């Protein structure tokens, strides 16, 4: 069972992961975009984490919503606004919950996915963040239904996200700056999908760390 305090730690860990991967994301974004992704994701998750770190709130939905609002104000770039939309959608979906079981964790990421999709109006296969997250959400749902331990599910979800990211090579970009490149965009990896990959790696690390501590 994950609590509100766990969400705070997950946000903090995501902020660290994005900070650590600043140059990696800048590099990815420089081939196709404006090189800002490392900055916006670092700043955005840091702001989201900071906004809720000291909050006296046990409602996981409200925390996620607040984190999203903070993200949207801090980094209103494409990915910033999409990540904000994802977190705010999680907020609406999980409002009232103070604990997350494994099924709720899957719901968390499904809501995140839906929030991004309804804001950005992209489809799976359009070479975006969604392609990174899509497979991971599927794994989390299936493993929760199967009753697999969260640490294992998170690890498999992270692998799926990584595959999803790698599979964006070959896709034709339909959105954002990359779309302007037309066929040329196929050769490149999608930077937004790399963020989905990092989010799932980070989540898996967090769950693994927590499991160790508990065991």
């Amino acid at each position, binding site marked *: 069972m994950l609590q509100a305090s766990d969400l705070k730690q997950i946000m903090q860990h995501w902020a660290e992961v994005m900070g650590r991967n600043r140059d990696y994301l*800048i590099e990815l974004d*420089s081939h196709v975009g*404006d*090189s*800002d992704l490392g*900055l*916006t994701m670092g700043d955005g998750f840091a702001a989201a984490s900071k906004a809720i770190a000291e909050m006296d709130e046990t409602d996981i939905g409200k925390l996620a919503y607040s984190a999203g609002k903070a993200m*949207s*104000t*801090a*980094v*209103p*770039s*494409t990915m*910033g*606004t*999409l990540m904000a*939309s994802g977190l705010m959608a999680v907020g609406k979906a999980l409002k009232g919950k103070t604990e997350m079981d494994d099924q709720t964790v899957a719901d968390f990421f499904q809501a995140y996915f839906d929030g991004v999709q309804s*804001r*950005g109006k992209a489809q799976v296969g359009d070479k975006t963040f969604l392609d990174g997250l899509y497979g991971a959400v599927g794994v989390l749902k299936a493993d929760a239904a199967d009753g697999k331990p969260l640490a294992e599910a998170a690890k498999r979800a992270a692998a799926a996200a990584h595959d999803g990211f790698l599979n964006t090579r070959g896709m034709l970009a339909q*959105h*954002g*700056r990359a*779309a*302007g*490149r037309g066929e*040329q965009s196929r050769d490149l990896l999608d930077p937004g999908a790399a963020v989905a990959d990092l989010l799932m790696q980070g989540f898996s690390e967090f769950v693994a760390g927590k499991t160790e501590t508990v065991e």
Partner: protein
Amino acid sequence: MKKIINTPEGFITEMLEGIYAAHPDQVNYVENDLHCLVSVKKVPGKVGIATGGGSGHLPLFLGYVGEGMLDGCSIGDVFQSPSAEQMLAVTKAIDSGAGVLYIYGNYGGDILNFDMAAEMADFEEDIRVESVVAGDDVASGAPVKPGAKNTRRGVAGIFFVYKCAGAAAAKLLDLDNVKRVAEKVCENVRTMGVALTPCTVPRVGHPSFELADDELEIGMGIHGEPGIRRGKLIPADTIVDEMLNQIIDDLPYEKGDEVAVLVNGLGATPLEEQYVMFRRINQVLSEKGIKIFHTYVGEYATSMEMAGASISLLKLDDELKELLAAPADTPFFKQFQY
């Protein structure tokens, strides 16, 4: 990175402080946020026009807030969209009951945030908001099909959208009509750019791309987005011919048409060179029997210290001619009735 700044982090805030200090009689900010800029003059019953976008393009975007043009602008960090909350703050401040028109460039981040802001304005504030998205850069996508989504980037041609829609709003036309004018300009304006050097986003610290000492790139976007072709430096007339022919064929602009021309410097290219370009534009248009109604030359939409320029043509009808010729008085663009 050779810039007159204090710190990359403080750059935009300090720039904004400078702007408010320099133009206290024309612009102000709302909700204690320097990024939410509005005109000091509010006209009852007038449609409010708001724009917004990333910094680094002065006089775009905020420089056109003033009489006869825009009413407000939300400002992001360098090349980054402002937030939906900031857009909403501006929207609330400039609405005087006649509704608000958003005019902005076709970039993913801006679209997402303006959409979010429009939703909030409608649901939370009961302000009617309409949006017109400018996508004039011929180099950045296939020709626009009627009804289909325009995939082209918005660049310097948005100046014409501001100018005509601003004049329409100043005449107290209603929201539908101001929007109609803005859309008409979008349909009739085309732009193409050329870059000679990159620019550096202060927080990144190094140029966003490289161009050899004898190279240029035709069609590059104002954030350094890839263009149509990279090649050796060629004479000014050859550059103009290449750009202008693609512009002319795209709409197309035809014999007998009347147009306004905008030659826009991207930042480091001197006015002298922009006039050398206009000389050729004038020759080509007159050969093709396209009449020039009015010409604008200078820095209208920049990429900080990027060297290069863009050419925009706007096809005019009587309504647009009248609106274009109307006076305007903003910190960066002043025009007497002509």
